[in-house]
């Protein structure tokens, strides 16, 4: 017992030393440095925006105080922020298919691993090029240093002096109130919103993932105080992949509208809806049997729609809810759709292609599902936030009548906290602890088996 106590005391002292020894450093993300505002002014807890930060973003990264143009900045100001996260994590995945005889007798095993690791590196650079003209560029690497462009866009804001006329062009995050790009959690399954990425088992439609940045043109309008927001975007049905990999005339529309209400001491409450309606190719010309990128035709439709609510219960507690009803055309349900996607990790000719004469099985149905995300925050103060999230995705119609009704259903639970020992307008630093547990029905290697996965993550999240 006394050994356990001394063990605990040691850990406590070490943790206090580690956190307490950190200086009140100057450092910061680019916008806070530009405007001299603390992270907490725009972020409920960075990277998640609060209402003021959302308005700043909606104004084209401007405070609208006539000091937004770069001509007002110190010439040495450089609008760049780097973000990276060294972590320790323990990952446990159940029912992974393994070779029989490799120490396992039924072809599956739970894989558990732990160790120190890195996230990728993000180079956020953005800001105004001139009053009401802004840009955002985000080259992002994975943990091996392989880069891609996560965001590349230019914005024109307040056209003709109206806050209702703002447009952006390029690759950008969709206008999701619960932003996946500003998610507070970092684990593999908890670091994304399952509701934003859900794809039924066997479905080939990768184009309806509203959590991914997309290529297109967006119009956004908002009231001066940002209480009312509407947006509409025309996107290429490519899931943000460059190079016109799909085909001609496959586009997606994404629409949002929301209204916020001042409820006195409770805070500001926001409710709204979103809808994504699009089509994408399922038929590709082939060369040597391999689909040719850009040759897609035979567009089939898909949709995602739902409600969003952000509810504040005083200054400490808030709850965000996102619902979704999704449906894909029956062809997508049979795996057609992403045959030409170079990023799908599968050899092109392994994926089905809706070439002339292809007939769907009699059991094929258009898959549809319902999902919801509930994310709660307890903000003890701007430097300490507790996060809890529950996500559920439930199939309402399977792609095949032979599938079990619950095949692919997901339940995901994430809890964690982030502690920011420093809070200035110069840099961001967080001590991050998180645990995610996810359950998926029927996706084990053997029929009818469910898969449970979990991850514990501890790390430093910093940007400067």
């Amino acid at each position, binding site marked *: 017992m006394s050994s356990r106590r001394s*063990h*605990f005391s040691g*850990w*406590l002292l*070490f*943790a*206090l030393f*580690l*956190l*307490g020894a950190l200086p009140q450093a*100057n450092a910061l993300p680019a916008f806070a440095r530009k*405007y*001299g*505002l*603390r992270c*907490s*002014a725009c972020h409920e807890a960075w990277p998640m925006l*609060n*209402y*003021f930060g*959302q*308005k700043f973003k909606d104004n084209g990264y401007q*405070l*609208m*105080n*006539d*000091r937004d143009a770069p001509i007002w900045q*110190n010439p040495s100001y450089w609008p760049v922020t780097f973000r990276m996260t060294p972590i320790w994590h*323990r990952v446990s995945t159940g029912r992974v298919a393994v070779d029989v005889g490799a120490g396992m007798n039924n072809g599956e095993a739970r894989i558990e691993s732990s160790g120190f690791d890195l996230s990728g590196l993000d180079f956020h650079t953005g800001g105004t090029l001139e009053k009401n003209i802004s840009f955002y560029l985000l080259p992002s690497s994975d943990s091996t240093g392989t880069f891609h462009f996560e965001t590349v866009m230019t914005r024109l804001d307040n056209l003709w002096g109206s806050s209702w006329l703002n447009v952006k062009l390029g690759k950008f995050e969709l206008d999701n109130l619960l932003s996946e790009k500003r998610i507070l959690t970092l684990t593999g399954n908890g670091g994304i919103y399952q509701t934003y990425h859900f794809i039924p088992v066997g479905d080939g439609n990768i184009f309806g993932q509203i959590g991914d940045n997309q290529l297109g043109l967006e119009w956004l309008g908002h009231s*001066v*105080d*940002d209480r009312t927001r509407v947006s509409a975007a025309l996107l290429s049905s490519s899931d943000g992949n460059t190079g016109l990999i799909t085909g001609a005339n496959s586009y997606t529309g994404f629409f949002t509208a929301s209204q916020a209400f*001042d*409820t*006195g*001491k409770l*805070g*500001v409450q926001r409710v709204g809806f979103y809808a994504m309606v699009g089509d994408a190719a399922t038929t590709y010309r082939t060369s040597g049997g391999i689909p040719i990128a850009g040759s897609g035709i035979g567009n089939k439709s898909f949709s995602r729609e739902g409600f969003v609510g952000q509810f504040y219960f005083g*200054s400490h507690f808030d709850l965000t809810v996102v619902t979704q009803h999704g449906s894909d055309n029956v062809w997508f349900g049979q795996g057609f759709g992403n045959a030409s996607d170079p990023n799908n990790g599968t050899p092109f000719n392994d994926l089905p292609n809706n070439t002339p004469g292809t007939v769907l099985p009699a059991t094929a149905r258009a898959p549809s599902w319902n999902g919801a995300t509930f994310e709660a925050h307890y903000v*003890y*103060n*701007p*430097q*300490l936030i507790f996060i809890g999230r529950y996500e559920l995705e439930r199939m309402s119609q399977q792609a095949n009548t032979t599938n079990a009704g619950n095949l692919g259903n997901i339940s995901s639970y994430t809890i964690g*906290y982030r*502690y920011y*020992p420093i809070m*200035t*307008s110069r840099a961001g630093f967080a*001590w991050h*602890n998180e645990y995610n547990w996810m359950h998926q029905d029927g996706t084990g290697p053997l029929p009818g088996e469910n898969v449970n996965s979990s991850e*514990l993550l*501890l790390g430093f999240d910093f940007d400067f």
Partner: protein
Amino acid sequence: MPTKLLTWSWLVGVLAALLLAATSQAQITSYEEKGRLNTDSHVGKLTGHAQNAAADYRRYCVGCHGELGDGNGENAPWLDPKPRDFTLGIFKCRSTPTGTLPTDQDLYDTIGRGLDRSNMPIWNTLTKQERVDLVAWVKHFSPRFQKEKPGAPIEIPAEPEVTPERVKAGQDVFARVQCWKCHGVEGMANGPSASTLTDDLNRPILPYNFTDGSRPKCGTSDQDIYRIFMTGLDGTPMPSFSDNIKPDEAWDLVFYLRTLQPHNTFNMKERQIAKQLGLKPVNPNAPAQ
């Protein structure tokens, strides 16, 4: 054993974070000896309480205005103009006579409007209650609010019709009270005194440039402009002209000042009249009338 270790790691992390967060929370109230945390504010039907605004002040304001409200936040060295020192109880944007305290409504309006050409943002995303609470918090920094009452808001007579005669008369007022000395004959903030101006803390300060399209700091309506030069901007070289300009003349001056601004939704008629009159900038060397 590894499981126990993980559990302990988790608990230790949470506990350490809570302890340190509690410590840092305490920093903001370290000066409570002044005992003014019970300060209230009243705007319309809303009543604000200073202690309710502590969290919002810490989240949004402390980086510039500082924990003690003295304008010495960590960002102050890099800001121009400097953040307001609330402890002095001196405020630019008031509806009250020069030298007096502002009303709660004045402070509330400033928070929601922001201050153009400064780093003070427009905080209209905060709820009305949050803003009223922040007014009380701002007041609690200065002992003046304990000892004095706000001044009585000045009376602004009904706005008359804009006429060519009034615009011309406004130009005469502009010349007579020598607005041009700071603001320049064309309102371009380049008058002969412009480069010498300092605020009450002896820091350089620029006059307002009517021609660059920026918003006046204390509001954009005709009434706001009337109020600015009749109450003055305390803490700056902009005095109150209430002793020099009669209310009727003040409206004339508002109309003339509108002609100096670039085209906007407020000054179409005034600019049209100025064009018809062929209005030229005032002549500083002309004999006084």
